[in-house]
């Protein structure tokens, strides 16, 4: 019976609050505006942060899936994309490559050695500088970098050291500005003639787009004269085994060299997971920071609600007096005004969520930035808003419930 009466009271409070909010629409809206903006900005800004994270992850995956790169030289950081890929003194041997390949198919999908140097390409009267990459036929698969026209070279090309080249898209544009079909044309690289067999897709990275890719065998014989590799690309079977694989490669290559630890090594292994980890960590920090700033605006919105609720209590003193005379208890008035504050803030929260989605969509549609609204951000922003109303509604509601009925009735 008591429970039923309480439920009825709660419902009545909600109805009364809605009526009071609606009877003062403009003010209610302005009161809730702080919360609306707060919630919308939390959602939009965290959506931007998470969007940045996702787009970085996407960019990472364009490097190739589950990629480890064994580099020649002393370890320096974990960067997968090095500022300079050409003219590294190569220290990795065919033996190293064979060793890595032999780690087994439960760890390694495939491997592709790679060396590069700056070359001069010439077609008829046109000249361009390009990164000349010597590698093997596994390269497109591992680096997720495929020919868009024509084809990549084959194992047969590799074995017979054919002078064939696949041009990076920028290199192609430089040499064939009129867009002519290059297949079968002869291009000179550092003076040696190469037959064009394909054009690589656009990657947006200068070292890949301004490139010319040739079989490693040809590269060694004609251009570098060096049979060691600058780097070895390794594709792992799954993200889970990447650290294990990195460990195995380091151990095997160290023992091959008779070296005790990586500090003395003439190679190092860059792990895609490290890079993704670092980048997503940065994006998450960014998200948290943006969310925090937005949360401050929510707090300010809450204070706005308290302010208006105090005004409202003062304005409605005689209403409070009437209610008290008719038998409203402190708890009735407390819940009435609390409900009003919570409905204002939760209502503002709902509008804010809608606005946040709209803004995130707008930024992506018209601002060209990837945004991702996460359910967590929505839940946190909304419940924070509702809680703000509850928290900042307590004091005004308490004031209302403690008024002296006689004074309140006499008011006005």
């Amino acid at each position, binding site marked *: 019976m008591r429970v039923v*009466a309480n439920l009825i*009271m709660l419902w009545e409070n909600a109805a009364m609050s809605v*009526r009071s909010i609606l009877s003062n629409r403009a003010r209610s809206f302005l009161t809730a505006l702080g919360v609306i903006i707060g919630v919308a900005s939390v959602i939009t800004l965290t959506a931007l942060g998470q969007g940045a994270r996702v787009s970085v992850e996407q960019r990472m995956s364009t490097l190739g899936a589950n990629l480890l790169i064994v580099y020649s030289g002393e370890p320096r950081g974990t960067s997968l994309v090095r500022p300079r890929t050409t003219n590294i003194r190569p220290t990795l041997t065919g033996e190293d490559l064979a060793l890595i390949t032999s780690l087994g198919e439960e760890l390694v999908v495939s491997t592709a050695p790679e060396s590069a140097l700056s070359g001069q390409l010439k077609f008829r009267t046109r000249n361009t500088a390009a990164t000349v990459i010597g590698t093997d036929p596994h390269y497109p698969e591992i680096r997720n970098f495929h020919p868009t026209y024509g084809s990549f070279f084959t194992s047969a090309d590799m074995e017979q050291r054919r002078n064939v080249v696949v041009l990076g898209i920028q290199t192609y544009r430089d040499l064939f500005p009129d867009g002519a079909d290059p297949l079968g044309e002869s291009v000179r690289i550092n003076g040696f003639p190469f037959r064009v067999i394909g054009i690589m897709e656009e990657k947006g990275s200068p070292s890949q787009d301004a490139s010319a890719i040739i079989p490693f065998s040809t590269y060694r014989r004609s251009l570098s004269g060096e049979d060691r590799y600058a780097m070895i690309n390794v594709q792992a079977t799954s993200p889970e085994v990447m650290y294990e694989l990195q460990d195995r490669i380091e151990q095997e290559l160290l023992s091959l060299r008779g070296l005790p630890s990586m500090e003395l090594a003439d190679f190092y292994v860059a792990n895609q997971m490290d890079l993704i980890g670092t980048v997503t960590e940065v994006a998450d920090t960014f998200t948290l920071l943006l969310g925090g700033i937005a949360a401050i605006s929510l707090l300010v919105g809450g204070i706005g609600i308290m302010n208006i609720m105090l005004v409202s209590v003062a304005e409605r003193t005689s209403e409070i007096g009437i209610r008290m005379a008719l*038998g409203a*208890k*402190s708890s009735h008035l407390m819940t009435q005004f609390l409900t009003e504050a919570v409905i204002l803030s939760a209502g503002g929260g709902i509008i804010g969520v809608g606005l946040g989605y709209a803004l995130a969509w707008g930024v992506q549609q018209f601002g060209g930035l990837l945004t991702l609204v996460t359910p967590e951000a929505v839940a946190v922003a909304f419940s924070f808003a509702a809680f703000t109303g509850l928290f900042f509604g307590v004091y005004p509601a308490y004031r209302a419930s403690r008024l002296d009925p006689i004074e309140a*009735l006499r008011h006005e």
Partner: protein
Amino acid sequence: MITLNDIRKQYSMGPTTVTALGGVSLKIDSGEYLAIMGPSGSGKSTLMNVIGCLDTPDSGSYVLAGEEVGGLQRDDLAEIRNRHVGFVFQVFNLLPRATALENVELPLIYRGIAAGRRRREALQMLEQVGLADRVDHLPSELSGGQRQRVAIARALIGNPSVILADEPTGALDTATGLEILSLFEQLNHSGVTVILVTHDHDLATRAPRVVQLLDGTVTSDDRVGNAAGRSSRQPEASRCE
């Protein structure tokens, strides 16, 4: 049904202490119609607040419907007001944004009564005060007399032990005031206990029993012979001490 025994109440106004009630004793039976009269400052507002359980006396005992009200807390007083007292005020005191029906329902909301029954009873009360066709009007859309009728319906709805009317005609013109007054009389005939608080002699003397208050004490308590009769208008002096 209402028994006040030596009720005292003092207020401190700055350095001075004002005695609002200096030992008031009064007994009101169920079904009575009584006017409490006195000039302003006589303590009649304080007495009304005490009887209406809006205020508690400093000393003395007040028993309302068999319950000692003396030492009760705010929330208990609220509950007693809700169950036993129906207020009618000079300035109507309706909620401006609620319709006539919603205003009348209000006491039942605080009693925790479900919407359907509340609505039924409120409609019935509005009908009783002659406002069956005004249920959905806001107070601002009603005349003064109609507003006071809404207030009376609201006072009646919980079936309270007593209707406490504080200058109920004060904000009305004479004709409307008389209408309201005859509504009270009519209600009293059907068994409702009515206490009228006024400073208006003509108004008070329409009641079968008139209690005069001056400086916080009862100076006279006059009863017209037959409780139902309103024929006699001159007060008969008979001190009740």
